[in-house]
């Protein structure tokens, strides 16, 4: 039996590790969803914690703040519990999950030929404007995620699977508000 090797790809280790030239199609949504469900379950089963992203980013920015203005961190009640005194905000599970997510995304992009320096945007938007809306959207999301004590990963996904009532309410709030606004910002995406 012969194994088909795509044209231009040798069998050496480097050839197998080398980035693909043409991107592979994405996985079927239900398959990807089931795999994500397995990862989420494994996280809960082994550690008791689910998944998270915004918590890790939050701890990174608080770490920077603590480097620059430690006295201010030690006087702000919300920041004290993350980085007060000799507490290291980066010594937390969610930081490692967030860093791992960047690495996992990178390796998958690499293996599937989707590593590309580009800007994902709607067809009618200039690249510069897209950078601005990405920053603005990120800022609003970052503020909201901390307000809700978790984002789509730490709340909607993880709290959804463990049947947390608050997480379900929050998940519907995210979708409701995004759908309500979609028409008005259609120029960004259509």
């Amino acid at each position, binding site marked *: 039996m012969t194994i088909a090797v795509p044209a231009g790809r040798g069998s050496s280790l480097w050839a197998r590790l080398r980035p693909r030239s043409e991107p592979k199609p994405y996985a079927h949504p239900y398959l990807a969803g089931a795999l994500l469900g397995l990862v989420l379950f494994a996280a809960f089963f082994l550690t008791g914690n689910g998944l998270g992203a915004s918590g890790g980013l939050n701890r990174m*920015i608080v770490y920077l703040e603590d480097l620059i203005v430690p006295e201010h961190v030690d006087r702000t009640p919300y920041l004290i519990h993350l980085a007060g005194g000799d507490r290291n905000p980066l010594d937390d599970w969610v930081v490692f999950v967030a860093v791992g997510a960047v690495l*996992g995304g990178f390796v998958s992009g690499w293996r599937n030929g989707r590593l590309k320096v580009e800007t994902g945007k709607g067809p009618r938007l200039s690249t510069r404007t897209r950078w601005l809306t990405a920053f603005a959207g990120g800022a609003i999301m970052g503020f909201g995620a901390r307000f809700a004590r978790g984002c789509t990963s730490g709340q909607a996904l*993880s709290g959804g699977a463990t049947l947390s009532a608050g997480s379900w309410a929050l998940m519907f709030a*995210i979708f409701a508000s995004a759908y309500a606004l979609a028409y008005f910002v259609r120029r960004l995406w259509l």
Partner: protein
Amino acid sequence: MAPFPLALDALLTHPGANLLYLLIGFAFGYVLEIAGFGYAPKLAAQFYLKDLTVLKVMFSAIVVAMVLLFAATGLGLLDYNLVWVNPTYLWPGIVGGLIMGIGFIVGGLCPGTSLVALGTFKIDGLFYVLGALFGMLVFGETVDSFSIFWNSSYLGRLTLADVFGLDLGVVVVLVVLMALGMFAGAEVLERIFGKRDLRLEPKARFLGAGALLAGALVVLAIGQPTTEDRWAAIAPAKNAALAERQVQVQPGEVLHLMHQHELSLVLLDVRSESDYNLFHLMDAEGVDPRDLAARLPELRMAPANTVIVVMSNDEALATEAWKTMVAESVVNVYILEGGINGWLDTFAVGDERIRPAAAAGEDTLRYAFASALGEGYPASYPDPQRFAIPFEERVKLQLRRGPAGKGCG
């Protein structure tokens, strides 16, 4: 006792546990990328009904994880008590969710997917992550000015099963049915708005749907362990510990613990309110055994240096409460040896206002009091200089498994 979640720090050391979290994050990012979640236009298409990948991926992940999770807890492999369930802060959560929805449609990504966009060199992903860091900085700097609202409508560990008064298994089945309905609706929308030919979709998805529903029905059939089931699973070992008196702490040790300030001592008095009002230990909380269940989540999440001592007049009632707490995954719980009667035998000597009296029955007071002073008697907080009595050390601090009660914080 359910073997999972694992005691990670003890098993892998702290850096090892962090490495495991890194691997979990790696798998998370990898799967998000193969779903196409690193590319903002793909995510935003969800909100124009052309491509409902976001909904399909998210809800299939939620239901697959949910069915596996409650099958594992039902089979006694996983302890649901030790699984982090996001506490409900209803209104802050809803307001935060509404704000997040705006960020989602404007930015086209969410924090998790922006990390993947960043990992695959998307420049908008980089700007989004920088924006998110900025938004979080603003939040951290302003939250103390609206902390009253931010901490309002706190309902603790509240599940959908509690809200609707339904069995967990029933909720699992209903959530799966709801998700399948949403998938069917999503496919109809994609056909209309996205002009997708559904005949090209793999037939295997019906098999998957069937497997999921079957799994949910299995979860319903297995059921979830009750406190009695949980006790039955650990009874042989724990009954031996009770018989060998490993978990009964002597009055001298409790007095010692009262002055150990590196420990956080929780004294739970499960006697009747009238007995409690007559006399109790300094800072002891009166808890009706019927209300104990409501206190469990908080006791479970107590800091690692917490020692809980439960007491009744003798030991019978305290032992029952101890069994409930131990079965429900509370660690570092002990029983006051000899109960309040034994305490008074030791520490009430010479106090004219506390006199021995005949006990009215099992686990009742053997002392009569001149007046109901509660913790006003010297014996409530004995002078450690005066009562330097020897004791056998029984308290051995044990680390709780599972999350340390911070979640995605």
